[in-house]
């Protein structure tokens, strides 16, 4: 990564939206580092770590391309003897069909993100910047749902949702996922808003900004990396969540990816269809990867933006 923080003489008046100029004071340091033999050690370490991280994914990809007999071979072969897409076909055509499960998962995940943002941002802002009475107690209560194992709450929640007509709906499941994700989100936003320099907020107030305007023009842009983190974590939580997705949805056409992936691999007495598992793993990684890559830009730029304040 050749990105470097924007230097003070960079691009005119400080705008809150950062741009990476690509030229900066880090360069000479890097050059010195490149010259040092320590770099080789460092690179070797990076390559080892990368290999460790990538190995399972590559093996998964290779296994997903094997025929189902080869995928379950003991001892396993590292490379498929022939490329076969039968595992992907099986996952694609399983019961209601992959597009249905993908759509359900995405719908619930995006609703979870929306709900998390809508709730955690005002909550975090209030707790960070306003003299709320019994602030710490409220914060503790917000964290409570982290402390109770949510499996224990499923039965009462399901009864409640059924009577409210929320069982079997995307919104119902998204609410459960939001509940799971909200404590972390509020915690994150509160810390992030607290880290915004008071001078900036005061300057905004001096200019006549109301509290909502200060949130919109000062706090949110300054906390972009936290918003991105929140989005990413909410997505991943919802995307991977299994037990609530199974309990709250009652029809095949309502199930999300994790439920489908458990079903598609299941044979008699827990026998596992390894080929289908690996194809499912690869398919379910893709959206997470995609959303990370899409958001990464804001992640990095926001981080550097904060660094020069």
């Amino acid at each position, binding site marked *: 990564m050749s990105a470097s923080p924007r230097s003070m003489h960079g691009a005119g008046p400080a705008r809150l939206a950062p741009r990476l100029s690509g030229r900066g004071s880090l360069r000479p340091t890097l050059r010195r580092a490149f010259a040092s033999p320590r770099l080789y050690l460092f690179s070797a370490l990076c390559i080892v770590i990368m290999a460790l991280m990538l190995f399972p994914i590559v093996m998964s990809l290779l296994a997903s391309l094997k025929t189902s007999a080869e995928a379950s071979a003991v001892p396993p072969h590292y490379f498929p003897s022939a490329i076969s897409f039968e595992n992907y076909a099986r996952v694609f055509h399983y019961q209601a069909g992959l597009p249905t499960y993908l759509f359900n998962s995405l719908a619930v995940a995006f609703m979870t993100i929306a709900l998390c943002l809508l709730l955690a941002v005002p909550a975090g802002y209030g707790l960070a910047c306003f003299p709320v009475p019994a602030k710490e107690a409220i914060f503790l209560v917000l964290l409570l749902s982290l402390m109770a194992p949510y499996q224990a709450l499923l039965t009462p929640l399901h009864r409640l949702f059924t009577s409210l007509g929320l069982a079997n*709906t995307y919104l119902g499941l998204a609410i459960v996922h939001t509940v799971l994700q909200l404590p972390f989100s509020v915690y994150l936003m509160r810390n992030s808003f607290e880290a915004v320099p008071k001078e900036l907020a005061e300057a905004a107030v001096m200019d006549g900004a109301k509290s909502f305007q200060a949130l919109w023009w000062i706090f949110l842009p300054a906390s972009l990396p936290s918003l991105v983190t929140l989005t990413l974590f909410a997505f991943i939580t919802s995307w991977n969540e299994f037990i609530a997705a199974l309990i709250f949805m009652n029809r095949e056409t*309502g199930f999300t990816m994790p439920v489908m992936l458990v*079903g598609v691999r299941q*044979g008699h007495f827990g026998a596992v269809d390894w080929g289908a598992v690996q194809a499912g793993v690869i398919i379910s990684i893709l959206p997470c990867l995609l959303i990370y890559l899409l958001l990464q830009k804001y992640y990095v730029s926001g981080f550097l933006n904060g660094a020069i304040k």
Partner: protein
Amino acid sequence: MGVSKTLRRGILAAALSLAAALSSPSWAADSLTMWVRASGANAAQHLVDLWNSGHADKIALTVIPDNQVVSKLAIGVQSGDVPDVISFDLIYMPDFMRAGLLTDITDSMKGDPNFAKVAPAYAHLATYKDRLYGTGFTPDVSILIYNKDLFRKAGLDPDKAPTSLQQIHDDAKKIRALGPDIYGFYFSGSCPGCNIFTTSPMMVASGAKILPANGDEEPLAGTGVKEVLQLFRDMWSEGLIPKSAQTDNGANFAATFKTGKIGIQGSGGFIISDLKKDAPNLDFGLAFLPGVKEGQASAFVGGDVVAIPKGSKHSDIALAFIKWELTDEAQLEGLAKNNILPSRIDLAANKYFQADPRIVTTAKAIGIGYVPWVFHFNDMVNSDSSPWIQMIQTAVFDGKVDEAIAAAKAKMKEIADE
């Protein structure tokens, strides 16, 4: 304006998705819902497709992962959100009936001529306090499978399956001698379900009684228990079983045999279609699971039952479906045609099974098989720390056969007393 634009877009997306939230996942308004466990989904799908092709009231199938069926149904019944009809692992029938989760169908089924022809094990299992709560749906039964190619290479007669425990041991030794990666025998050493299915029938065939219906009955009674465990222990210490068997929690219950490197293994009727599909070149034979003495044999009758949960909104149509699935049409065109065993014993030998005598063997195994009518099957057998699986592991892998049996007996009695 970079950031605020992004934010605005985000908020727009949030608003849009909230609007979408008002809509539910799309499904037809008036179809019946049926739950089935994942490992029975294939058979159920054939039946449901056949029903849907000839009936105005359509059934939509929902596949539940095997391990979650119990909790999902229990939660569903409590909140009144249940399917119209459900099929599940037959072994849970006593617990479900006692818990009051199912609808009494005694009066509607007693006069049904097809019901009388269903394998008696199902009627026995689905009866609680003289009332009937379900019937057989998609049966499965355990059998012994062996690799005929390996039998030939080892100089054994490929048409002569082992018919006693001693023969299994002898044949396994000869097959193991074929090469370093060829093994005589296989079983899933950490899979309680696989072993009640394939190992317990060898004990039952040898005269043992495995599970107690109540606290007064003696669990694991008879010498067959020890004889089978000792055989497995001997084969394990002689290296006739691959090391991977010790940790196999069932994930490789079917996969290992498909590699063609296992001589003999206990398995189920489902393996026929699996092997034909995944390992078409593997020449395999089927036989009953034997006991100590020549001629002794047994099987575990498994598979799924079908029932109507309490709170079903279309119980009349659900009942019509249950009656229909016992007709010749459903049993032959829905099941037998797709290489699946019918639950009616009078249809065991049918035109679709003529081509492959191996399927007839499994269909016949249902006739000699047993199915335990017990509460707490999960605690006694199916859970990962059950006395059943602990006994097998301690006896086979640690070699403490007598201690293992004594400990399991005590624990099972304790569970049955509850």
